[in-house]
């Protein structure tokens, strides 16, 4: 039907360049970008950090700050030029015809205004609607975005509702005036995977219902595959490829797009059978881009022409657009890994070996203070956040335990307890036979040395005041593992192992990229030759191409030093790829634990099933079963009785009388095999009967 009526595009960019004035010149953050978005269409814009995708969004809204401006090209909205529109005309467009949803809803909402007021002003200002009428509309819109208890939410302040709900409010607010164009800048990045899935469903629904054109910006290839109709790939400020979503994943034309797809582990892929190939090199800074093709320094198919001639975005016979001289000639299957990528081999681990870490019924409670008068003077009843409840597992030397779960599930507390940053409330934990339920202050230095940690955020993992060399050598001095005069040599050896090289010794953190900082963080953790390294989301803050390199590095190290790893992540594909054994946590409770391949196929715990159903997969041909959890994660101060998951469990009604037992009784551990256990009331037979969540669609599209 829509193809029948030819309608003009809602948004049309032609050869747009956006520049920022800085001291001593200007930087073109975005160059040569052209695309259009039609009604009811979602254009996904993907790219790694710093590729200019957010700048593009701000350019459309004409909100580039004092020093930014559209240097060249035209941005046409509904046929009318947007560049140069200012003042009242611009104000009337914003919020009425063009709306935006941002990454962090908590930041985007005014903390001191009621949500109802923030929403209804969109209507009262733009449409001159009466306040009561506007509020009525807002409530209808909140219902439409499936917000429970809309009337109540209107009276609340942003901090009183959860992140997922905040994002719903922001989306509802954006849609109030039925905008022709909706710009979404990483709207789900700050959300947990199950919440993200629900928001993505919502976006798809709304696009159909409102016939809105959506410009969807994200770095996540899985999310793009789920929401977009067409995809534009950006690299270093340029648009390098543009095609339908099926085409992009099935038949990527640009070497960069191909590289990106090779970087991310497919859900179900594991380290023994597949390899991740990072893209070599790094993104050039905007003031130092190559003369020729921007991707040429990192391209495997580079030719002489690429070095000095900048390719134009051109259309291929199959309809997709690509910025590459040799798009037709490149055959992705002829691609061979670079020499420097060692493909780690022989990665199958035996889980039955010597246990290095044994944890039994580990509990960690935090005391919380109430706010009543009694609590303030210390007479109130003591209440606890039950951050970790009865965690038990064993870890064999040289293997990896992956821990997955959404934020607040207790996975970080678990490793903090193991490493001793927090003491244990009760339970047993033995590492190499030593008791480690105490805090780090009470541990022997030689024990501390064997337990080290790799952190999440590359920007804060290194102390900005010291050089790389100083930071890596500190553990060696502290633990006296290396004689003083050999420290430097030892550090350089480690740097080489991290593929950084000796010339990094004197560099300060601010001279390093995110991936390099993370490598230094790993080197520092390894400097004392620990037996067990705890990795707290070591790759989640990195771009996908760098992420692959770090994962490969960790695998290599593990093999070389026979290190044992505990690996925390929220990305299920990464955990699956990386781990030998996986534990799924929910609200402080381990729900399922077992060999990685078993977790990702039935039988599984209903929560694991829901997680798998929610995870965005970077392949539009993959079909996922539709399971969405209702409500939000309950408070850990008063976790639900019985099974902690019972308030949201979609599988409860498979039990007689709707799973009454789940509300009252703590579930048993169902032993599927020696290593695989599921914490659920459902009998094994029923668990086994679950259909797989993820299926590869065999039908060619």
């Amino acid at each position, binding site marked *: 039907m829509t193809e029948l009526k030819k309608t003009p595009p809602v948004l049309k960019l032609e050869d747009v360049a956006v520049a920022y004035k800085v001291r001593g010149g200007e930087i073109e953050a975005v160059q040569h970008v052209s695309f259009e978005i039609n009604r009811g269409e979602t254009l996904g814009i993907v790219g790694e950090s710093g590729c200019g995708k957010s700048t593009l969004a701000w350019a459309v809204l004409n909100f580039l700050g004092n020093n930014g401006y559209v240097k060249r090209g035209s941005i046409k909205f509904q046929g009318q030029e947007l560049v140069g529109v200012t003042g009242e005309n611009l104000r009337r467009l914003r919020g009425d015809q063009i709306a935006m949803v941002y990454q962090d809803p908590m930041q985007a909402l005014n903390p001191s205004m009621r949500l109802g007021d923030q929403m209804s002003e969109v209507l009262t200002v733009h449409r001159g609607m009466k306040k009561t009428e506007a509020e009525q509309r807002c409530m209808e819109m909140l219902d439409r975005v499936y917000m429970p208890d809309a009337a109540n939410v209107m009276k609340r302040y942003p901090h009183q509702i959860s992140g997922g709900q905040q994002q719903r409010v922001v989306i509802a607010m954006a849609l109030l005036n039925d905008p022709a164009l909706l710009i979404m800048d990483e709207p789900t990045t700050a959300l947990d995977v199950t919440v993200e899935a629900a928001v993505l469903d919502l976006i798809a629904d709304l696009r159909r219902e409102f016939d809105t054109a959506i410009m969807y910006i994200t770095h996540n290839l899985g999310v793009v595959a789920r929401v977009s109709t067409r995809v534009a790939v950006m690299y270093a400020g340029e648009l390098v490829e543009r095609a339908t979503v099926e085409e992009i994943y099935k038949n990527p034309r640009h070497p960069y797009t191909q590289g990106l797809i090779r970087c991310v582990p497919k859900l179900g892929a594991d380290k023994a059978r597949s390899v991740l190939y990072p893209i070599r090199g790094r993104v050039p800074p905007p003031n130092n881009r190559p003369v020729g093709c921007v991707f040429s320094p990192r391209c495997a198919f580079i030719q002489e022409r690429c070095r000095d001639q900048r390719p134009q975005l051109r259309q291929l016979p199959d309809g997709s657009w690509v910025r590459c001289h040799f798009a037709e000639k490149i055959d992705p299957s002829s691609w061979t890994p670079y020499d420097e990528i060692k493909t780690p081999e022989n990665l199958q681990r035996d889980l039955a070996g010597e246990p290095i870490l044994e944890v039994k019924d580990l509990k960690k409670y935090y005391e919380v203070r109430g706010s009543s008068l009694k609590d303030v003077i210390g007479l109130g009843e003591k209440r606890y956040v039950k951050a970790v409840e009865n965690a038990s597992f064993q870890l064999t030397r040289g293997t990896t335990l992956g821990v997955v779960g959404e934020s607040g599930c207790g996975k970080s507390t678990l490793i903090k307890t193991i490493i001793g940053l927090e003491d244990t409330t009760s339970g047993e934990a033995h590492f190499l036979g030593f008791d480690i339920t105490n805090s780090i202050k009470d541990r022997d230095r030689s024990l501390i040395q064997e337990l080290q940690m790799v952190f999440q955020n590359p920007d804060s993992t290194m102390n900005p005041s010291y050089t790389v060399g100083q930071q890596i050598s500190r553990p060696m001095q502290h633990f006296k593992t290396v004689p003083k005069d050999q420290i430097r040599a030892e550090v350089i050896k480690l740097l080489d192992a991290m593929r950084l090289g000796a010339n990094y010794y004197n560099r300060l953190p601010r001279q390093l990229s995110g991936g390099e900082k993370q490598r230094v963080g790993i080197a520092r953790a390894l400097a*004392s030759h620990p037996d067990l390294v705890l990795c707290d989301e070591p790759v989640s803050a990195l771009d996908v191409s760098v992420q692959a390199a770090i994962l490969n590095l960790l695998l290599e190290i593990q093999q070389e030093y026979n290190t044992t790893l505990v690996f925390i992540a929220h990305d299920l594909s990464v955990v699956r790829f990386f781990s030998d054994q996986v534990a799924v946590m929910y609200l402080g409770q381990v729900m399922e634990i077992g060999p990685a391949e078993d977790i990702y196929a039935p039988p599984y715990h209903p929560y694991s099933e829901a997680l798998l159903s929610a995870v965005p997969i970077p392949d539009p041909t993959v079909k996922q079963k539709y399971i969405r959890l209702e409500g939000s994660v309950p408070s850990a101060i008063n976790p639900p009785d019985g099974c902690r998951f019972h308030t949201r469990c979609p599988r409860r009604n498979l039990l007689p009388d709707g799973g009454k037992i789940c509300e009252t009784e703590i579930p048993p551990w169902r032993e599927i095999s020696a290593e695989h256990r599921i914490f659920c009331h459902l009998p094994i037979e029923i668990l086994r009967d679950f259909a797989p969540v993820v299926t590869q669609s065999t039908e060619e599209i």
Partner: protein
Amino acid sequence: MAVKTILQPISQPSRLQKMWQSTSIIFESRVATVGMAMVLFWVILAFLSLFWTPYDPNASDFLQNQGPSVQNWLGTDHLGRDILSRLMQGTQVILLKTRLPGDGGISIPGGVAIWGVIGSLSLGAILGLNAGYRGGWWDQVIMQVLDALIAFPQIVLYLVVIAALGQGDLVVILAITITGAPGVARLARSLAMDIKTRDYIRAAETRGESVWYIMFWEILPNARGPLLVDGMLRVGYAIFAIGTLGFLGIGLPPPDPDWGNMVNEARRNIFSNQLAVIWPALAISTLVIGLNLFADGLREEMTRYQK
């Protein structure tokens, strides 16, 4: 191999270049440059006065309450002393020397304002780091004590300290230290609370480093910038306070001229000789404003640099 070619060594800047880089930030900001010029003017005068002043600052060699002339560029005061010489000499005790008590007349380098600020920075940093990093009871107790100190109106605290301990350079230093420390401590505390959430602090903790190592080797170097800028501002406050104390007649003791005291004395002859009031008043405000502009510009430039 390909990796190696991309990782071209970044040439290490020499120490001199590094120093220039860190000072060049001053000239990025016009405000900071103007401020620095004003401060430098007085610093140069102070050093000059060590070797030369037009006349003996304490000698009543001239007619009283004269206006500017070729002889006395800025005129003379009510006792017939040369105002310029007194102004120049007055910089020393603020910026360059501290007179120790006793008859020997021994001075140590570093002015009263400088030592006072160093005192409040050190005391404040120690308290603030402990409160911020350790948290819990340490924080409660330290902040409670600091709150009590902050609750004192500063001038009342000065009055009380001086009423209790009498006049003298060291007493003024102590008073500046005590009044300044709570502010520094609050700043250090908030910086420590921010920095302690960083992963590199976690890394140090998982290495089993001692609390003092973490506070002074991991946190302090990263809190240095804001603390130094705050210190710069505090030198301004200190000069401000010294002037006020001098004006109230309880500041730095003679024989060295004190700007605040000069204003106070000249005030009595304000109907006959207004210039004698204006010169020292201008001196104080230009120096304080200069320091403020300098610190302000620097801070602005630093936050911009971080962005």
